[in-house]
């Protein structure tokens, strides 16, 4: 029921954008317009195909399966927690990269954004090497605190945060660089410590950028597959998120996979549409 509703809003959004940009559109040269619209088609057609091939008759049965809800719930919880983790450590990291001039800053920036280009599966293996039971850090976590992260929900959150945080860091750093650092100076002359200035002035000023970054990170975390299945494994209710469920369902039951994908799509569209205003403002 949610999913058929998911399509018209998207289409309506495209139309709504039309009248406002009409004057601009008439001036768009064909060599730009053609590839741009091909691009739109290229991105939209597969999603439409998913809707066209959806087994609507068996959909209710698929969607009422507790497995689906379990995976969806886990996905939403883990993506949200991963976004939370990214915010807590990613925003200060972005601030550091944008505001503090320290030697090797360029290198640090390159390294922290590396997960953007790393195949997620490799990221998962790297996480195993670091935080696995036998990993260089995980070994101590295990022997000192008895904490092992692979095959746990916490492991899913870590894998998703690892992949998603760079999106947030890049987005927030960009916003910080664009923001006027003199507001921080003004705050300092009013008696605010650097931290107070950050908390009460900078943070509210870059809130739209943080929101945009958080949405990007959340969306990335929600769709995360490779690092999750590699680092956290696949166990229903504990580490099996929607993308894993979709992938494994695809092996034997493509209809179920499509149904699951549809749920994921509907939830993503709902959340992104809900955040659209704030997101747009930041853009």
């Amino acid at each position, binding site marked *: 029921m949610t999913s058929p509703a998911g399509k018209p809003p998207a289409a309506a959004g495209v139309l709504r954008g039309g009248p406002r940009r009409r004057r601009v559109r008439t001036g768009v040269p064909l060599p730009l317009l053609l590839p741009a619209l091909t691009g739109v088609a290229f991105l939209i057609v597969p999603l439409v195909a998913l809707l066209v091939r959806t087994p609507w008759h068996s959909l209710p049965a698929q969607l009422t399966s507790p497995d689906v809800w379990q995976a969806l719930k886990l996905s939403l919880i883990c993506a949200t927690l991963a976004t939370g983790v990214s915010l807590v450590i990613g925003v200060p990291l972005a601030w550091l990269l944008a505001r503090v001039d320290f030697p090797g800053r360029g290198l640090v920036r390159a390294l922290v954004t590396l997960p953007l280009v790393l195949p997620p599966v490799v990221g998962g293996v790297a996480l195993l090497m670091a935080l696995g039971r036998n990993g260089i850090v995980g070994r101590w976590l295990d022997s000192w605190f008895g904490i092992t992260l692979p095959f746990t929900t916490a492991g899913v959150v870590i894998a998703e945060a690892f992949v998603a945080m760079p999106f947030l860091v890049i987005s927030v750093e960009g916003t910080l660089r664009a923001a006027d650092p003199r507001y921080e100076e003004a705050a300092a002359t009013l008696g605010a410590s650097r931290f107070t200035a950050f908390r009460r002035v900078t943070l509210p000023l870059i809130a739209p950028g943080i929101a945009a970054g958080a949405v990007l990170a959340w969306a990335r975390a929600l769709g995360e597959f490779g690092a999750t299945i590699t680092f956290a494994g696949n166990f229903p209710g504990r580490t099996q998120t929607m993308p*894993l469920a979709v992938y494994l369902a695809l092996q*034997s039951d493509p209809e179920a996979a499509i149904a699951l994908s549809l749920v994921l799509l509907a939830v993503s569209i709902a959340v992104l549409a809900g955040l659209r205003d704030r997101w747009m403002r930041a853009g």
Partner: protein
Amino acid sequence: MTRTVRRTRRPLQVAAGGAAALLALSACSSSGADSSAKPDSSGPGKLSGEVTVFAAASLKESFTTLGERFEKEHPGTKVTFSFGGSDSLAASITGGAPADVFASASPKTMKIVTDAGDASGTPAAFVRNKLEIATLPGNPHKVSSLKDLAAPDLKVVLCDKEVPCGAAAQKALDASRLKLTPVSYEQDVKAALTKVELKEADAAVVYTTDVRAAGDKVEGVEFPESADAVNDYPIALLKDAPNAEAARAFIALVRSAEGQKVLSGAGFLKP
């Protein structure tokens, strides 16, 4: 209203143009496949051209060897492999991937292809694979049977029930009325084995061939219940095979005494 109609029409036309461009691209690639099939018609006695074989990941080592032998016996031919999970391969074939031969790790996945009418003739089982427990080197947890895997504290990974090795493991567990809660259902047998190789899991139920291929990174433990869950590996010529004749010859090599020797060397059982 009319304004809206006029506005929406233009993007639609252009979208159609974009779709046409995509179609043209795909047309190019299929014509490429056609041209590679042409040498096939040159003469019945002499084999040539490319043979594309889609094979289960567990066949990688042995099929690579057989491919080299085939190319040596039939100069002018080239065997190209695509190894992967049988399910994904089956999905590619039914989706229209240009392949000549499909060697699957389970009759169930082969059935996906035959049901879709993509196989030519009846698939034949050419080897069988048996399950084995892969443990850490030296078997520190003293695992000696399937039952031992149910110990608390022991981190066991199984293949997901959707993939053949997981289905087989489940069959073995059911047959011995064991209930086992693994820490993870891995997406394929290699992933399950990797978790043990990396020492993240203490044990995994995988194929004998995988244990053998992993060398000394894991230690294999055979268990009697595996007899209840032996996997047949079927092989079939595909209906739309671009190079059917060479494909038939490759299947013959796999099923020949010579082929069986290579396969059993990798740990496979005779059918």
